[in-house]
Every structure is written in C-alpha cells, then in structure tokens.
C-alpha cells in the first residue's frame, strides 16, 4: 500500500470542500430557527396576524435552507470510512458515539418538530406549534453540540484509554468528552456564529425590500428583532472567542502561535491587530516575522495567560521546548522539545510493535506475559506522543502559518464589523431613517456574503491551525489516510463539485424566487 502525499492532499482537499459546503447551510439553520421562534412567540402573545405572516415567511426561508443543507454532512461520514479508515478505526467509539447520538436523538428531534412547524399550521394548537418551533431550533443546536463534541475530542483528546489489542481508543469518561473545555468553547462560539449570521441574512434580505420600497413594515420590524438578536449574539461571540483563544493557548499552543504568526515568544507578548507576514520567515532563521504590523501591547499574553506579562510560546519555542507552561487543569509542566516528543512517540510505536509480537508468540504457546506487560507499560507512558513518531522534521509539526494568520484576522475583523453593523442599524431604526438610508441598505445586503466568509474563515483557523494532526498529538494526517488511490479520491472530488454546484444553483434559485415573492406572496 502506498500512502503518498498526493493521496493525503487529495483526501484533505475533499474533506475541506465537503465541510465548507456543509457549513454554508448549518449556521443559518442554527440562527434562523431561533429567530423564527421569536417571531412566532410575538404572534402567540399578540395574536396579531402580521407576526404570523412574518413567521411563515422566515419559516419558508428556513425550510429552503434546511432542505438544501440536509444530509450534506453525511458525505463527511462516507469519507471517514473510505479515505480515512485508519483514523476511523483508531478513534473507535469516541467519534462514533457522539455522531450516533446526534443522528438518533438530536437530528430526529429537529426533523420531527420541523415537520410540525412547517405543516402543522391550523392542524395543531397554537401552543403546540410554538413549542414545536422552539424545539426545532433547540434540536438544531443540540445536533450541532454532538458533532462539535466529536470534533473537539480530536483537538483535545481526553476521557479515553488506548486498547492495543484492538488498535482503538476506548471511551472511559463519557462526560469528560461531552463537557470538555474545548467542546464548551467551540459549541458556544459556533452556535453564536450561526445566530449572528442569521441576523445578518435577515437584515440583508429586508434591506433589499426597503431598497425596492416594498414590504416596509414587515422589513423594519424583522430588522429590529434581527438586529437586537444579532447584537447580543455578536457581543457574546466576542466573549466566547476570547475564551476559545484561551483554551487553544492551553491545549494547542502551536495553533495559537500560527494564528499570531508568532515565532519567538516573550513575557508580555503583543497581539497583532493587522499585519503582513514575511514569507521568508521560518522557525530556524532570524528574519523579522512581519513586513508590517500594528499590535496591541501585551494583548496576546492577556488573552492566552490572563496575565499582562505572561509568557506565550512562539513556533520556535515550541520546537525547542524547555519553557514552563500551565495545563488547563492548572498543572505546571516543562515543555518537551520536538526531538524529545518524536523520541517519546517512537518509543510508543516501538513498544506497540513489540507488544504485538509478544502477543503473537503468546498465542503460539510461549510464556511471555512479562514482556507483554513491559511493552504495554512503555506504550502507556509514551502514548500521548504516539503521533510524533510519524513526524520526520520540525517543519512537519507546523501548520500553514500564512493561511491561519490571515483567516484569523478576516474572522476577527469581520466579527467586529458585524457588531458595529448591528449597532448602526439599530441606531438608524431608532432615528426612523433606516428606510431612507440607501447606503446603509446596500452595505447590509453586501454583508450577506461577508458573514459567510467570516464563518468559513473561523473553521479554517480551527481546522488548518491544528495541522498536522487529525487527533492532537496522537495521530497525524499522514497516518490517518486509507490506502485508496489518489485518482479515486480526485474522481469523487470532481463528481462532488459538479453535483453539488448544480444542486446549490437550483437551491439558490428557489430561495431567490421565494424572496422575490415576499411575505405577501406566500400561500400557506
């Protein structure tokens, strides 16, 4: 079997395209579900038919997005089995259990109540319909929780033991996985991203109506609700982003260093606001890492250590090791160098190989239980560095710094822009001049693609930033891929792109058609 770089790159490309396509639909489902629930609550409380019409219009947009997005994530699961079979086996039930719970419980809850929400008008009581709408929104978030718990485990593997006989990780502390600090940070940040995205989409669509001078009352009232919702989500998003960065500093320091383009750490490390990286910089030369930058003094130390003069390791520091750091549980340790980690990883791999040999001998009648126990002891002692045994040089442990650095800035700058947009829109609404402010309406419409770029950039930071790992420290990408041919993967990428681009165009046409009809054009 030949595990080539081409196969690895093709498999990564396919997974990235599929995941990014999937994330085009997920955030709007997450956020618009709650906005629809808020609109329907207004109808339930006021008995005003206006809010019923508003609810039904946004329900229809929700339905289109749901229909477009449903099952796009399933291809990721196909890819696990076909392109990432080593990973899928190695990860065992850690990944399977949350995905199964997501599929059996959360997704069915979401789809069941979605059916009532969509088809139940006039067929069930108003209270039951309202409850179904809230449960649809909650089900979507719950669904996201389990997926993100599985993803978070890959970034911060916890609550498991490795079984050398089955070559699988086995779950021993379910709640450690479900409520790991990475899961909580990732879930809150991702879901709030969905809330903000939905608010921007609602404001953008309504701004188009206002520009066309139609459905003015509907648009202004929808914008008011969405802008308050978006502003609250945006502020909370910034807070959870801060928490996420703190957790990344503790669990994935290399990712944080890449996000900042930081090579040489120091006490009181500044946070780069905007900057241009020096392409000549590498971990082993003395080039200035930035061609240009504007930084906030001591900002990164505050973000990563909660101390103005805290030490934040850079890429070169992480490779050299030797610095003191504190883990999430408060335990203080001295960082190992790259070479030491590779050595420990090789010890783990060799112990594992010997374990297998002794097991085979035992199966043939030889008494070698002591040797098995000894090999198992070495494997357990060094297992947290198992994946380093696959890396050949320090460069292998560094993610693509430029992509992560710029994606992080795109996410943060756009995130700040959206908070400002919500505040400005609310101010213009209060002054009763929004419908006449053509420039702001155009800005709001143009913000729709930007909010999608912002969300995708966030995932680029999270997923590219953790390279080269599929499971942090335990399994690198190179060891995770299957033995399928690269040409097979490239074929499926091509098919996927053609099929799903066609579907996306069809789906967008349906959505635009419904938006053009507007709230008065809906016959329920």
């Amino acid at each position, binding site marked *: *079997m030949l*595990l080539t770089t081409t196969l690895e790159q093709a498999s990564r490309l396919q997974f990235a395209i599929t995941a990014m396509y999937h994330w085009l639909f997920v955030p709007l489902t997450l956020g618009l579900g709650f906005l629809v629930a808020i609109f329907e609550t207004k109808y339930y409380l006021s008995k005003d038919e206006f809010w019923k019409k508003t609810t039904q219009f946004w329900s*229809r947009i929700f*339905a*289109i997005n749901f*229909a*477009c997005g*449903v*099952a*796009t994530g*399933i*291809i990721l699961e*196909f*890819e696990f*089995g*076909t392109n990432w*079979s*080593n990973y*899928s*086996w*190695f990860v065992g039930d850690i990944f399977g259990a949350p995905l199964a719970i997501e599929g059996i419980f959360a997704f069915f809850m979401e789809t069941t109540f979605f059916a009532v929400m969509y088809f139940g008008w006039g067929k069930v009581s108003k209270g039951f319909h309202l409850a179904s709408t809230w449960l649809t929104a909650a089900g979507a978030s719950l669904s996201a929780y389990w997926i993100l718990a599985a993803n978070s485990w890959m970034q911060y593997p916890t609550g498991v033991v490795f079984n050398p*006989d*089955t*070559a*699988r990780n086995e779950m021993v502390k379910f709640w450690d996985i479900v409520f790991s600090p990475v899961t909580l940070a990732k879930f809150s940040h991702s879901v709030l991203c969905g809330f903000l995205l939905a608010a921007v989409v609602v404001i953008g669509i309504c701004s188009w109506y206002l520009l066309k001078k139609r459905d003015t009352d509907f648009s202004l009232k929808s914008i008011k609700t969405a802008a308050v919702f978006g502003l609250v989500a945006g502020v909370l998003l910034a807070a959870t982003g801060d928490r996420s960065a703190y957790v990344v500093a503790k669990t994935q320091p290399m990712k944080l260093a890449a996000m900042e383009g930081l090579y040489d750490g120091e006490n009181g490390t500044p946070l780069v606001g905007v900057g241009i990286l020096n392409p000549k910089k590498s971990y082993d030369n003395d080039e200035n890492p930035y061609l240009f930058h504007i930084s906030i003094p001591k900002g990164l130390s505050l973000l990563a250590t909660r101390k103005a003069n805290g030490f934040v390791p850079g890429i070169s520091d992480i490779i050299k090791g030797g610095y003191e750091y504190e883990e999430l549980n408060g335990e203080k340790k001295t960082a*190992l160098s790259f070479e*030491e980690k*590779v*050595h*420990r*990883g*090789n010890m783990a*791999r*060799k*112990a*594992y*190989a*010997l374990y*297998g040999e002794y097991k085979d001998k035992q199966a043939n009648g030889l008494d070698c239980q002591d040797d098995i126990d*000894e*090999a198992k002891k*070495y494997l357990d*002692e060094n297992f947290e560095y198992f994946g380093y*045994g*696959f890396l050949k040089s320090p460069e292998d442990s560094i993610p693509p710094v430029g992509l992560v650095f710029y994606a992080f800035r795109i996410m943060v700058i756009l995130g700040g822009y959206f908070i400002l947009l919500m505040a400005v829109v609310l101010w213009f609404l209060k002054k009763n001049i929004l419908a006449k402010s053509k420039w702001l309406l155009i800005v709001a419409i143009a913000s729709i693609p930007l909010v999608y770029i912002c969300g995708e950039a966030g995932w680029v930071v999270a997923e590219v930033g953790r390279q080269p790992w599929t499971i942090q420290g335990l399994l690198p990408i190179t*060891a995770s891929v*299957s*033995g*399928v041919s690269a040409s*097979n993967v490239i*074929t*499926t990428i091509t*098919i*996927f792109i053609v*099929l799903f681009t066609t*579907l996306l165009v*069809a*789906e967008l046409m*349906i959505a635009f058609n*419904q938006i053009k009809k507007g709230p008065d054009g809906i016959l329920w």
Partner: protein
Amino acid sequence: MKFGKRLWLLIFIKLALLFLVLRLVFFKPELAEFDTDGQKARHVKENLFMQGNIDDGSITTKD
C-alpha cells in the same frame, strides 16, 4: 403546494445521489473488505507501523 413539492424533489434527488451513486459506487468503506474486527485491527496496525522508521525509538531509554 408547488413549493413544498419542489423541496421534496430536491431532497429526494440529493439523497438518491448520496446513497445510490456516491455511497454505493465511490465511497466503499476500506475496512468493509475484512470480515472480523480482528482482521480490521491487524490491517490498521500494519498501516500504522509501515510508516516512518520506528527503529529510531528505543524502549530501553526513558526520558
């Protein structure tokens, strides 16, 4: 209900493509060719050990 029918059609086309074309023709699980978990485990172990030079590691030296 023309709109609803369109959405259902879209969903069914998508699911058919996913499960009848992509899943059956292109995305065959690599480990499905093995009958038992033991065979699957052995195959993955072989993949894990064939990469790199694990003789670089020494179990006689502890850090």
